[in-house]
């Protein structure tokens, strides 16, 4: 794993909101095919880092390179086209659309029908819809969402919405998938299901994963490498085993008295 090429480089990124330093000089690499976990206490800057990568925020300083391209100089709507997808901490689905249409909407960048083709529909746009429907159905099968295919997402419970959001991100066929707390608010069983889906997506679809998660046991189980943030600084980086025994991490994250 250590030898695979670098997919994403975060180079000395700082992010300020006024005088609040959300991130200061954070650097890290994401290697192709790995699962990288970002952990840290609340307000450590984990989501800020993800937002910088997905171009939601513009870093005050530093560069973010994805396959050699500087993301800080790219428009937000072009990020998906480069092969980066993400999910959100507070689920950002299209609540008025069905599960199926949410996934179909994510095929947008892979489809070509323009306005006139869509208005005429029969012919090119129809055939294109059918083609992409097959891709989407594969993901629906994969995530076991057949039963909720035509249910409007607004009517789904939290756990299923999280799964639909993962499905929507996978429908983009990304190279890099950013997951912001994919398991918040889930019970043990749902968490295990989700972990299985994430690992399957990683293995079967070859997606590189960056995930933020608070469940330590889970992070230690599935991550290849872990980055620890605290007050906007990176305080440690290494394999789960190294992180588990790193005194600074124990001090900052788990608390001095804990272990």
């Amino acid at each position: 794993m250590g030898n695979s090429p670098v997919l994403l480089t975060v180079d000395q990124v700082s992010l300020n909101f006024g005088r609040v330093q959300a991130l200061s000089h954070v650097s890290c690499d994401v290697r192709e095919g790995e699962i990288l976990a970002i952990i840290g206490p609340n307000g450590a800057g984990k989501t800020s880092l993800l937002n910088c990568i997905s171009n939601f925020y513009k870093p005050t300083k530093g560069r973010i390179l994805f396959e050699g391209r500087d993301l800080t100089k790219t428009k937000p709507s072009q990020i998906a086209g480069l092969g980066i997808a993400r999910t959100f901490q507070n689920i950002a689905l299209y609540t008025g659309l069905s599960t199926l249409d949410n996934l179909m909407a994510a095929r947008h960048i892979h489809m070509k029908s323009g306005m006139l083709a869509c208005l005429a529909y029969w012919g090119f746009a129809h055939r294109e819809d059918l083609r992409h429907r097959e891709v989407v159905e594969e993901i629906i099968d994969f995530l076991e969402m057949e039963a909720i295919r035509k249910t409007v997402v607004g009517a789904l419970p939290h756990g299923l919405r999280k799964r639909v959001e993962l499905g929507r991100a996978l429908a983009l066929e990304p190279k890099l998938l950013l997951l912001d707390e994919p398991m918040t608010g889930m019970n043990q069983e749902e968490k295990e299901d989700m972990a299985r889906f994430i690992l399957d997506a990683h293995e079967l679809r070859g997606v590189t994963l960056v995930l933020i998660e608070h469940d330590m046991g889970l992070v230690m189980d599935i991550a290849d490498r872990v980055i620890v943030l605290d007050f906007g600084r990176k305080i440690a980086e290494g394999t789960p085993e190294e992180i588990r025994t790193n005194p600074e991490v124990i001090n900052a994250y788990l608390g001095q008295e804990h272990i």
Partner: protein
Amino acid sequence: MTILRPAGEFDESYAYDMATIRRPWQWAALGLLLLALYTLPLYGSQSMVSLVNRIAISIIAVQGLNLLTGYTGQISLGQAAFMTVGGYISALLMIHLNWSFLLTLPAAALGAGLVGLIFGLPSLRVKGFYLAMSTLAAQFIIPWFTRNAFRDALNGAQGINVPVPVIFGIEFNTPQRYLYLTITILIITTIVASNAARSRLGRAFVSVRDNDLAAELLGINPFKYKLQAFFLAAVYAGVAGSLMAHHLRHINSETFNLTDSVLLLGMLILGGLGTNLGPFLGAAAVELLIELATLAGPFVSTYFPAAAGGVQALRPLFFGFTLMLFLIFEPRGLAHRWQLIKASWRLRPFAR
């Protein structure tokens, strides 16, 4: 709401699953409905035919507004202004260049669409109520323009007389004949609107409405699709405006006014935002309500002579009150009620 299917009906292909009209009886019902509409002049009274004409034209305008406000989530109070643009363009091209209606209608649509595009530009920066206010500007600027600019051609506040459309030698000079025109165009606009809704375009529209930030990260440029929605809405308004102008044979700056813009938005909300059925139900309900309020006038004055003087004032009162009750008891629109009725029919006899 779970999707309920009649027992024994299976989707054997994605194409069948995606089809709008699925069963033979649905084709038959559609055929009967169209037959009833096209033969209406044979058995319907003049006023009834006129009413259907008016409803059909309103539906077209509301369909456009539905693409913009219902699907894309951009509130617009300028739909009637774009109808004015369409009406004038169509009339002027016919008067001065002697174009056929078959050419002036698309020209009116395109012209109105381009003007709509201009008034869609603020949507880059403003949302919600603020955008509604900026579309309101169209409602002031365009009528002002027709009153004050090019007085030779537009004839100021008096407006201009609009010629009768002639297609293949047939003069559409009576409401009965005009009905064939409006229904045919309504069929086309309905097909186009439903195509827009179910395709890549419609999904992009709803993405922008439901979560424009997520849409952007999924590769959908919100501004691009907002502009396309503004364009399409104005194209529909242009078609409706042109049809109405040729129907009334006269157009001035007040033919389509702010009240009409509000009314069109009211029709859409009443019918159901973001549904294909909404514009039909909403436009029909509101036009019928207006008709009913007008009919109620003489009735009131016959039986309550003392109130006769106030009847004119009662009409908007009756109309506004009914609309209010509708919104309280049917806030998600008539189309949603129709969905519920269908669902309970399929669950019969287990649901009431």
